[in-house]
């Protein structure tokens, strides 16, 4: 041990036990490291100490008064007692004090059975109260949004939830109001809480003040059987406990996994399991007869599929294509890959159903280029077209922690992100001008690296939102970074001139020796990519498959783990592909738009019903455990492929594949005058898609589809906030609610995908040029037709 390391350790005595801890550790941490339990309420080991609850009082020799162990730094030679009569008396007094206003309605409280206040009162409490006066009486519970219920009577004002919003999530979702005796936690004006991490506050609340409205009264902890599994929604792959009672997943809790999600989850992870028990799950195979889907036996459905696959195989190689993979486990993806490559004999496989043909998504492999842990140790983060809290929320928690340690965040986006106040620099421009903006930034970084000082940026390359000074400042920040992480999101990759943007971003990253991450893909896209659901030699990619299908080059299209009817970013491309292909087989859990158009629909298990693994966006393999049984006759995808293999007879080897000429791409005017108002389609965390749309609470958060219009454009077009508008491109039009907001930029209208009722993909075609859009109001605010509530 070096002299310096020895100096960095201190030795103290706690309850007669000698403990050696690194300098800077608190007495609480020292006690914990040797297995001595000190009761706490306000302290949480992922946040700095606060010392609000006074529960952790200990007696330290030579200190005249009792000290809070969570805030007291351990020092050499300290002698601490956690059990002396004075400490015991203090603990009893603190608990008696906390219970003065605590309603003791444990029998009806959802926290009962897993409540730190209950447990610690039992262990350290006085046993009886001397308080005979009336307790405080508040209306209970009050609802703070669709997920969170607040019971102010039970709150002991430990500030954990408030500090979670300040320190961990950075969204300041909950705040303390009023002072002293009447202090309470809440949101401004009692509005619904705005956070994507509010489930964590429920988890860390040491009493039943914050409870889940979804889980409310559904079980006690002793009813639940926890199943250790992995959340497969966004691609981060957070470890979860799924609490199962009576064959139903009642709630999800974070499972500690320091290298992925630590102890946190986002609300999609906490509440995104309702779809598993949805009443409209498919339970039997469906077969189309005379234009309608009828229930059929597995034998009939599989026989039909095998027969069509065999006849397609006989007509020549490569007349079958496979699309999808996002909702498959690694094992399913591997089985699908083997089945189509070796048994059916086709190289046309692709999981990248939502990638446009001319974007940059198809040219790169998706995912992070470093581990999440390494990412969290970066000192400059550049988010390019990546709305991190909407796409990979838990990744943001890591970046937020790094920012708190001194890292800088640079945002390059076509709109204002909710995390913008944490950014050092923000470069904004219209979606179609993002590529030139990134290239200007790359040039400026080159200049900054070369000159060692701020290089003057060319003003003509900088858009409305960003000035040359902003660009130079951002370039200086990036150039000064030692571990620069550039996250390239879907908005950037699939936007106009996405390939140019990728090239500039790559150049920029190389210049500063950083890491370029492709923040693209959800669910198990990364497992599908890893286990071969990509075009083989001579195979077509997803847009190629759709075009080939439309041109009649395919006999059979097989879809599993995807819903191309809503995922393909060109609604018409899917329509014509469906029209051009003779036979469509779909694995689905719900009668989705794709399933409705299918010839055979095979009911499948969803991921929480399967044992297996998934791959997260850093390439880590994570375990899935079957928490519940599937409905009816639904089967796992890989089992279906095994059954089909058995019915397909002798497997064909890899034959030569007839090269299918790609259908001529529509020639779009590139670099022409951009239209006055362009349409931008962005991702959202909570949507009305087939999974989140079936989760109670999350559907309320997703609300109805809306478009964001900048106030300047709104004034020009007569659009009012919350009024209904018609959005029309040259291809189609939809009616949505407008929100006037400066979260978007002038000259662009932002719409979210994922609302199956509003087919935004019908508005656009695969085209490298930005899509012009017209917008006009059709109804004043407050008069939505059909009585729908916003």
């Amino acid at each position, binding site marked *: 041990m070096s002299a310096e390391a020895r100096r960095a350790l201190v030795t103290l005595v706690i309850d007669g036990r000698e403990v050696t801890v690194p300098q800077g550790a608190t007495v609480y941490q020292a006690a914990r490291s040797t297995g001595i339990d000190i009761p706490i309420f306000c302290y949480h080991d992922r946040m700095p100490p606060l010392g609000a609850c006074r529960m952790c009082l200990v007696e330290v020799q030579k200190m005249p008064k009792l000290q809070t162990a969570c805030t007291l730094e351990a020092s050499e030679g300290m002698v601490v007692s956690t059990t002396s009569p004075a400490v015991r008396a203090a603990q009893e007094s603190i608990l008696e004090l906390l219970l003065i206003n605590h309603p003791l309605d444990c*029998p*009806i409280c959802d926290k009962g059975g897993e409540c730190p206040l209950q447990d610690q009162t039992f262990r350290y409490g006085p046993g009886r109260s001397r308080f005979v006066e009336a307790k405080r009486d508040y209306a209970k519970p009050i609802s703070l949004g669709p997920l969170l219920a607040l019971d102010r009577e039970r709150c002991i004002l430990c500030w954990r939830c408030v500090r979670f919003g300040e320190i961990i999530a950075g969204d300041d979702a909950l705040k303390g109001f009023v002072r002293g005796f009447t202090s309470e936690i809440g949101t401004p004006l009692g509005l619904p809480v705005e956070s994507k991490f509010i489930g964590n506050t429920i988890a860390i609340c040491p009493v039943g003040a914050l409870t889940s409205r979804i889980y409310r009264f559904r079980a006690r902890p002793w009813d639940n059987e926890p199943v250790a599994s992995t959340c497969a929604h966004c691609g981060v792959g957070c470890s979860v406990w799924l609490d199962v009672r009576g064959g139903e997943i009642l709630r999800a809790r974070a499972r500690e996994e320091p290298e992925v999600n630590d102890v946190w989850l986002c609300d999609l992870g906490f509440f995104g399991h309702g779809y598993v028990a949805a009443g409209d799950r498919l339970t039997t195979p469906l077969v189309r007869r005379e234009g309608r889907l009828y229930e059929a036996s597995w034998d009939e459905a599989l026989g039909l599929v095998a027969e069509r696959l065999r006849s397609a195989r006989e007509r020549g190689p490569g007349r079958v294509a496979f699309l999808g993979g996002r909702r498959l486990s690694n094992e399913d993806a591997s089985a699908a890959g083997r089945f189509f490559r070796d048994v059916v004999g086709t190289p046309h496989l692709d999981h990248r159903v939502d990638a446009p043909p001319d974007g940059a998504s198809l040219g790169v492999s998706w995912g992070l280029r470093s581990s999440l842990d390494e990412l969290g140790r970066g000192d400059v983060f550049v988010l390019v077209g990546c709305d991190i809290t909407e796409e990979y929320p838990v990744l943001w928690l890591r970046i937020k922690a790094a920012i708190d340690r001194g890292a800088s965040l640079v945002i390059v986006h076509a709109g204002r992100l909710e995390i913008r106040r944490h950014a050092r620099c923000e470069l904004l421009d219209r979606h179609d001008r993002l590529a030139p903006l990134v290239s200007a930034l790359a040039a400026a970084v080159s200049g900054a690296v070369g000159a060692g000082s701020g290089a003057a940026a060319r003003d003509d390359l900088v858009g409305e939102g960003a000035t040359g000074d902003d660009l130079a400042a951002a370039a200086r920040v990036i150039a000064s970074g030692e571990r620069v992480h550039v996250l390239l999101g879907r908005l950037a990759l699939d936007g106009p001139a996405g390939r140019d943007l990728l090239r500039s971003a790559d150049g920029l990253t190389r210049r500063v020796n950083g890491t370029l991450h492709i923040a693209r893909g959800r669910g198990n896209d990364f497992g599908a990519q890893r286990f071969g659901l990509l075009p083989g030699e001579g195979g077509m990619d997803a847009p190629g498959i759709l075009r080939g299908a439309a041109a009649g080059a395919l006999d059979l299209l097989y879809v599993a783990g995807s819903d191309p009817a809503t995922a393909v970013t060109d609604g018409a491309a899917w329509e014509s592909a469906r029209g051009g292909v003779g036979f469509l087989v779909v694995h689905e859990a719900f009668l989705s738009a794709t399933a409705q158009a299918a010839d055979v629909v095979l009911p499948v298990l969803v991921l929480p019903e399967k044992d297996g693994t998934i791959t997260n966006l850093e390439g880590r393999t994570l375990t899935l455990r079957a928490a519940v049984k599937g409905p009816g006759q639904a089967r796992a995808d890989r089992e279906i492929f095994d059954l089909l293999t058995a019915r397909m007879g002798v497997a064909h080897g890899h034959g030569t594949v007839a090269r299918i000429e790609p259908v001529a791409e529509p020639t779009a005017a590139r670099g022409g005058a951009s239209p006055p108002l362009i349409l931008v389609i962005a991702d959202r965390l909570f949507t009305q898609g087939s999974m989140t749309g079936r989760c109670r609470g999350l559907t309320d958060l997703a609300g109805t589809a809306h478009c964001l219009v900048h106030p300047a454009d709104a004034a020009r077009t007569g659009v009012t906030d919350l009024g209904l508008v018609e959005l029309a491109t040259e291809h189609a039009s939809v009616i949505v609610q407008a929100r006037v907001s400066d979260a978007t930029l002038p000259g662009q209208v932002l719409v979210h995908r994922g609302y199956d009722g509003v087919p935004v993909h019908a508005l656009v075609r695969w085209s490298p040029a930005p899509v012009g859009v017209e917008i006009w109001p059709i109804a004043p605010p407050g008069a939505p037709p059909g009585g729908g509530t916003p």
Partner: protein
Amino acid sequence: MPGLFKQSVALLRGLLITGRYLFRPPVTILYPEVKTRVAPRFKGRHWLTRYGDGIERCVGCELCVIVCPAQAIYVRAAENTPERQVSKGERHADQFQINMLRCIFCGFCEEACPTGSIVLGQDYELAGYSRASLIYTKPMLTEPYPGASGRDPGREV
């Protein structure tokens, strides 16, 4: 011979006891035609009691579930709504089942109940023709009117 005499005396003494009891009233009763009264603290079938105003006492807290040594109780709670205020407070038992085949009538559930809802009554005739009929559901367990179980509806807990 003296042995024979001794045995005859023993026989007559025994018959004398028989003869004495022959003319006393019997201690057994002719169940089921005749039923006896049980002790006041007898633990028979369970009742879910009501307050005097008819509101259910049970709040679905599941303390009886966790204390039950035979794991005979199943409770599923639900939320009270202003339109349907089943019990006091926010919570009520939506489903309440006791498996009478498992129950050992220890009375722990009664002891654990924070609202004095569950009580063990005097009824001991709990036979049935099927296993399913011996899983008592909430409508079977809830007393039809306050006080039907024999407990005072006005008591605190």
